């Protein structure tokens, strides 16, 4: 077939890009080559719109073993152990086929982690849906939850944390981000860099079918009415085969047969082979007739672009083929030697004894387009002045019940109960707390992890929002007693070709970078997902942070439920009463404008580190960071989980009690302390210049009192908090 400009455009390439390809090749590409270029040059693989901005992120730290640039990031957790982790998006496929889209998202991220030699020990996910009233939301939510569970549960990896939100900006473009943590010995990490000439390249896992051809391009295409036509690109996951692939790969990895290994993810065989060759500065030769295919008559084009799941590419040491083959056959997986490394610095493909493609690797990688897109700054919105009258008709208990039942605040138990969160026998903090925690098997150590995003804040002011999510992630780890180590990020935005959306991206990233720098909380891996929109309207900017922290002695881990009657409850960090963009303002007062809460890096760091010190000294009985819904929401959740009541007194301050209890000022935690320790704790807080308010005492009558007068049963709060989602889904 003669490749025309139109065919190139149909592949999602721009006219200029097609011209550049012809120039680089000094000829017109054939259809297979065009397919390869379109896959490698699209946004998803080339990062053409984000590259220059991603370079500004802090990625180094004393525990960082591997930063961005590999299948996943790696951090040191002492004693020769390391944690491999990464987050990835699977947004568009999940909208088209929620079960399979979400399932293959989970499968894909696990492969990224075990490719590096790590056994997955925890999964997380961050999922965002349209308004609950929207007609598609319920089925999408059900499908996504079943898909995540269907894959993760079958793999036997606990799903220990996550995040779920609803916002009408996701009505026609849901977000499904999946994250995995794996455990590896520091000296047994595997990388994707090819090395050595004439080394055998092997293909293992499932057979190649016509799944998801052009899936990677789809992830970068605008979502519009033509979606129907793009349907057949959805892949079907096979978690059972992935489980076998995991065990087989780990078995092969115990020896020294592997030079390089790479999973086949987006753009399948194309991107995996090109990336391995590129990193090793080598060429690669593949005989496509050797690829195990599921369907007959597959063309080179289809084979190269297939996104069939559960496949890996491995470069072996010479002479190890038989050994490897034995292992993969034992696990009933396909195995084939498909080519070798060369010194041509080209990717050369053969089919039926003909060369069907020959492309210099550097044209696909280094010479791929890079864009410095136009972007617009977002102004800081004006603060709202709320008249005191608006508070008058509001009863605090009603407000509290309403907020607890809000779709974004309510308990997500219905979701995480469908995820096996206890398999592997090391989960010591399950979903529903500030962070999930798993022990490092057979040691006293544990890792804590959480995923966070705040699309509303990022939408109101991207720069502030970017700072905020990093701080929130950091707080969630500290709340369970973990020292934050590093993070991964999934950047979900609208079209980079739209100045506003691009501006949101750039400024969120600046905020993220500043926060990471200040908190010494580096970024070790991540993923960018653009074009999240329907027609011309982008989603609210939704960068997601996946944080990982270390607990050196897990007996010191803290949980959020109130523990003991007569304990004193404090809030640490200063409450100013800024309610703009709080759930209280947006949902109760119906005021959607205004600036998000500010971040003060000094306080953030100081308070967090002070709290860690208190935890270290066994002075904290429970802790919970204050986030969506403010102090009262945080305290109610601690009461509900601990089945305890509390007598609350509002400190004598000038601000209104609704502002005090529901504002979302940043950098605050609720802590429970034993009365005998109160003095010591106050001393430490004073010495470290950490502001605190004493809020009240835990009681044993299961009621929440304000100033000894107004009261509400914890049972009532619990019902408000837990029933909404179950009712919504089961009705």
């Amino acid at each position, binding site marked *: 077939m003669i490749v025309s400009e139109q065919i190139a455009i149909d592949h999602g390439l721009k006219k200029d890009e097609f011209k550049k390809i012809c120039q680089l090749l000094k000829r017109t590409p054939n259809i297979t080559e065009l397919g390869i270029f379109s896959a490698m040059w699209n946004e998803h693989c080339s990062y053409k719109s984000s590259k220059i901005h991603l370079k500004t992120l802090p990625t180094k730290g004393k525990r960082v073993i591997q930063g961005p640039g590999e299948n996943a990031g790696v951090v040191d957790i002492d004693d020769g152990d390391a944690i491999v982790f990464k987050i990835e998006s699977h947004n568009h496929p999940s909208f088209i086929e929620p079960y399979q889209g979400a399932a293959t998202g989970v499968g894909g991220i696990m492969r990224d982690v075990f490719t590096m030699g790590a056994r997955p020990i925890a999964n997380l996910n961050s999922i965002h849906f349209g308004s609950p009233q929207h007609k598609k939301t319920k089925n999408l939510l059900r499908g996504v939850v079943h898909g995540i569970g269907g894959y993760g549960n*079958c793999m*036997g990896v606990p799903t220990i944390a996550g995040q779920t939100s609803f916002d009408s900006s996701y009505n026609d473009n849901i977000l499904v981000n999946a994250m995995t943590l794996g455990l590896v010995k520091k000296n047994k990490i595997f990388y994707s860099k090819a090395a050595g000439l004439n080394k055998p390249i092997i293909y293992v896992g499932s057979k190649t079918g016509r799944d998801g051809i052009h899936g990677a391009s789809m992830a970068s295409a605008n979502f519009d009415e033509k979606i129907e036509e793009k349907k057949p690109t959805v892949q079907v996951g096979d*978690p059972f085969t992935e489980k076998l692939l995991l065990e087989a790969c780990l078995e092969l990895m115990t020896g020294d047969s592997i030079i390089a290994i790479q999973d086949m993810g987006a753009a399948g065989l194309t991107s995996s082979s090109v990336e391995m060759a590129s990193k090793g500065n080598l060429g690669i030769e593949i005989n496509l007739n050797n690829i195990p295919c599921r369907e007959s008559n597959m063309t080179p084009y289809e084979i190269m672009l297939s996104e069939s799941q559960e496949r890996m590419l491995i470069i072996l040491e010479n002479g190890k083929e038989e050994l490897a083959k034995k292992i993969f056959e034992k*696990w009933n997986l396909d195995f084939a030697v498909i080519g070798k490394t060369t010194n041509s610095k080209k990717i050369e493909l053969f089919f039926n004894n003909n060369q069907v493609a020959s492309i210099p690797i550097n044209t696909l990688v280094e010479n791929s387009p890079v864009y410095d897109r136009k972007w617009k700054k977002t102004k800081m919105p004006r603060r709202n002045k709320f008249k005191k009258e608006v508070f008058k008709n509001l009863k605090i208990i009603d407000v509290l019940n309403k907020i607890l039942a809000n779709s974004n605040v309510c308990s997500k138990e219905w979701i995480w*109960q469908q995820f096996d969160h*206890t398999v592997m*026998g090391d989960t010591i903090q*399950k979903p529903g707390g500030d962070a999930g925690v798993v022990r490092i098997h057979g040691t006293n150590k544990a890792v804590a992890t959480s995923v966070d995003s705040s699309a509303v804040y990022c939408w109101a002011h991207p720069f502030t929002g970017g700072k905020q999510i990093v701080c929130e992630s950091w707080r969630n780890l500290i709340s369970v007693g973990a020292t934050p180590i590093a993070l991964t990020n999934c950047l979900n935005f609208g079209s980079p070709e739209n100045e506003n959306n691009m501006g949101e991206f750039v400024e969120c990233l600046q905020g993220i970078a500043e926060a990471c720098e200040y908190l010494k909380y580096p970024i070790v891996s991540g993923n960018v997902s653009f074009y999240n929109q329907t027609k011309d309207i982008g989603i609210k900017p939704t960068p997601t942070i996946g944080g990982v922290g270390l607990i050196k002695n897990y007996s010191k881990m803290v949980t959020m439920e109130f523990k003991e009657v007569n304990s004193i409850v404090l809030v640490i960090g200063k409450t100013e009463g800024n309610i703009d963009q709080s759930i209280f303002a947006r949902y109760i007062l119906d005021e959607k404008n205004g600036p998000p809460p500010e971040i003060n890096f000094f306080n953030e760091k100081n308070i967090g580190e002070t709290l860690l010190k208190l935890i270290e000294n066994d002075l904290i009985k429970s802790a919970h960071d204050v986030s969506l819904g403010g102090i009262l929401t945080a305290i109610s959740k601690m009461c509900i989980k601990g089945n305890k009541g509390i007598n609350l007194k509002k400190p004598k301050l000038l601000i209104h009690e609704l502002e005090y209890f529901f504002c979302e000022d940043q950098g605050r935690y609720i802590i429970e302390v034993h009365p005998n320790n109160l003095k010591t704790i106050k001393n430490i807080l004073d010495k470290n210049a950490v502001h605190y308010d004493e809020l009240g005492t835990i009681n044993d009558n299961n009621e929440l009192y304000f100033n000894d007068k107004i009261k509400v049963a914890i049972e009532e709060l619990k019902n408000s908090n837990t029933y909404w989602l179950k009712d919504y889904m089961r009705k």
Partner: protein
Amino acid sequence: MKSSVITFPGSNCDRDIDVALKKFGFKNRMVWHADVELPKSDLVVLPGGFSYGDYLRCGSMAAKTKIMQSVINFAKGGGLVLGICNGFQILVETGLVPGVLLRNKYLEFICKNVFVKINNKHNIFFKSLEKDILEFHIAHNEGNYFCSKDQLKEIEDNDQVALYYCNQNGDTEEQYNPNGSIKNIAGIFNKEKNIFGLMPHPERMIDKSLSGEDGSLFFKNLINNLK
């Protein structure tokens, strides 16, 4: 005491049960599904997980493996067999214990703590266990126990129900039934009570840092009864 845990392709609680058995004094061996011989054992455990992906029907394909033929012979000769979760589903598919396990009532996978009441202590699994009600943990998609009326009568007449789902006081009302099981049944014996299948995972309850410790009671008691 010697135990053997069978690993099928797709088993994923095999390590967990191995850890638990060893913790309470068993000398455990892992047995690969393709093996034909069962090592000499005092107890054989079929672990949880998704053998063969849970495709077709849970446990259906594991039930046809060669090693299962050895397990069936072992069980029929009076050997002690414990099937946990997927292991229970495999037992049901081989016919070693009666009934079937259907999808959970709301078609939702359920992972949470539940209480179970021990129905019958005249057997090696529960003899002398000090508690009557245990806090266990479930994690399954197909734990909805079902059998015909006649079968149910037979099961009850032979005292084959091992565990009922209940609340912490041992009440077995429908509301404490997590998955729709007939009569709140959580575990079943064969007639001779040397084969025991249950949906809950006692191996996930062996440490106070985990979801609870009642699994420890179960395993400690079992090894004592075996001695």
